[in-house]
């Protein structure tokens, strides 16, 4: 089938385990994150230009890509560090607004987290990746009233006060 006319049927591929590593610069207070597939996630401090990056946290996580079963198109999702469920904590947040677009459906907003956590470069998750993720995650949902909306983390109002639930092994050993 021609890739340009294919009504894609996405499947998860290249599922890989690793760590979501978060670093902060004590100089400018910006934060970045990356996905490490090393057996032990790196924790060393280092200098990069004007930044002095220090390890803040790491959590076991997974990354994957999408492949169309019909036309074999692959969409690499290496820019997606993790997905985070929006808990609608701030009505002024763009993620909150994304969940309120269709009042007749129960929309669950998952924020795709990019590596530039503080968004200093104005780059976030590519729209092609978001489109494929949305198509993949909404395909096969039994309840027609339910919708998954994956949005870029650039929509998030404040990274420091966001209460979203990151889909990584965060806090699993906390008392529950």
């Amino acid at each position, binding site marked *: 089938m021609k890739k340009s006319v294919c009504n894609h049927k996405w499947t998860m591929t290249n599922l890989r*385990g690793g760590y979501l590593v978060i670093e902060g610069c004590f100089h400018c207070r910006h934060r970045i994150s990356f996905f490490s597939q090393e057996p032990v996630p790196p924790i060393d401090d280092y200098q990069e230009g004007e930044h002095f990056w220090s390890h803040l946290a790491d959590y076991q996580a*997974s990354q994957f890509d999408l492949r169309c079963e019909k036309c074999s198109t692959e969409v690499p999702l290496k820019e997606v560090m993790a997905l985070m*469920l929006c808990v609608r904590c701030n009505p002024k947040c763009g993620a909150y607004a994304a969940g309120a677009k269709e009042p007749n459906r129960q929309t669950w907003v*998952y924020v795709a987290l990019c590596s530039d956590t503080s968004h200093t470069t104005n780059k976030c998750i590519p729209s092609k990746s978001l489109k494929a993720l949305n198509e993949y995650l909404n395909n096969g*949902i*039994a309840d027609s009233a*339910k919708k998954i909306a994956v949005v870029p983390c650039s929509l998030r109002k404040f990274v420091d006060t966001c209460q979203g639930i990151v889909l990584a092994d965060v806090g*699993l050993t906390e008392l529950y």
Partner: protein
Amino acid sequence: MKVSELVERTALKTFNEGTDKEIKGIYISDMVSDIIGIKEGHLLITLQTHKNLIAAANLVDVAAIVFSRDKIPADDVVALANKAGIKLLGFDGDTWSLAKKLCELGIW
């Protein structure tokens, strides 16, 4: 098999109402990073009662979640599951015993 039939036949505890979905398979895992890869309609068996698990289970549209070893989810976990329509069940034995029971019932 529907989740309600499973509850009837195995005497699992129920922690909430949830939606009565069709069980299309079984998956056993305690890690959120692992659950993200499962297909929709699976019955998830886990020891983990953390809220993160519900966020991942909702994304992959599980049929229901069974907490083994008599684990009891906290109120905020049940509240999130209710919102997502995910049925939460409990089994007082270990995961292996439950897996054997499900095999005997022909659910895999």
